[in-house]
């Protein structure tokens, strides 16, 4: 378990919780990232806050990486994506296209992802979110086991 990093995980989780709490108590909006992106188009001035949030999210990650480079990827080490499992014979770019499409279609159909259902939905005790989280965690664990991507 040498890869287990409890302290940064808890600290990062607190920051994410504070982010969701800020958006909810200040603006009455849920910090669901898939919805934030999916509703950007068609763009209108009413969607400006979503664009501001996403740009700030990128800036927040960049700023934290500058302040705390030793935490890892994006800081002192370059950020990385997965490599497709060699045994399946699928080139990595194709693997990423399939994964990206499934993520886009799936989170739109389900109306949420790890943040919208995972953080906000569970906190709201939403039955829909408990089902969604159970399904996407279960299927993701199964996918990792079957594909051996890690």
């Amino acid at each position, binding site marked *: *378990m040498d890869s287990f*990093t409890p302290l*940064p*995980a808890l*600290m*990062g*989780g607190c*920051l994410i919780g*504070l*982010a*969701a709490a800020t958006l*909810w*108590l*200040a*603006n009455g*909006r849920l*910090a669901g990232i*898939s919805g934030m*992106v999916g509703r950007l188009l068609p763009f209108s001035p009413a969607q400006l806050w979503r664009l501001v*949030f996403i740009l700030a*999210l*990128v*800036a*927040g990650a960049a700023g934290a990486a500058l302040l705390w480079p030793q*935490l890892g*990827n*994006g800081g002192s080490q370059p*950020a*990385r*994506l*997965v490599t497709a499992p060699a045994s399946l014979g699928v080139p990595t*770019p194709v*693997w*990423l*296209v*399939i*994964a*990206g499409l*499934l*993520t*886009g*279609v*799936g*989170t*739109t*159909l*389900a109306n949420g*992802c*790890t*943040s919208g259902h995972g953080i906000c939905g569970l*906190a*709201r005790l*939403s*039955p*829909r979110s408990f*089902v969604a989280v159970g399904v996407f*965690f279960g*299927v993701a664990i199964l996918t*990792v086991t079957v594909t051996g991507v*890690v």
Partner: protein
Amino acid sequence: MLRLLAAALSGLLFGAGLYVSQMVDPYKVLRFLDFTAIPTGGWDPSLALVMLPGVVIMFLAVRISGRRTAPLFDQRFHHPEASRIDAPLIAGSALFGIGWGMSGLCPGPALALLAFPPADLWIFLAAMLAGMVGTRLVQLRPARLDPAVQS
């Protein structure tokens, strides 16, 4: 203006949290999802410790909002409209689960990676956006003609 500032503050905190927790590293996420590593001691439970305080803090915020009629800078709390546990929720979550298990990326970290983009990030992001826009176009299209009426 205050609404935009609050959105910016929230986004900054969110992005910082994704980097600090290293959820921007797909392999860290996958090492949580790899339950076959539990018996061998190679399992990384970090993701659970990211979710836990995130949910607890948001839970407290939801309790606070329950005692208020409106948020600070808007007329009302925008609760999600959907409430039914239906086929799109389950099918969509399953599809997302496959994508997440393949890539170790969910939408938040995928966007946060734009801060220090690895090669090929654009491939994943373009496919994700295409999936989102395509699905919404199909959803927004007026209901198809009833086949009984067509004949």
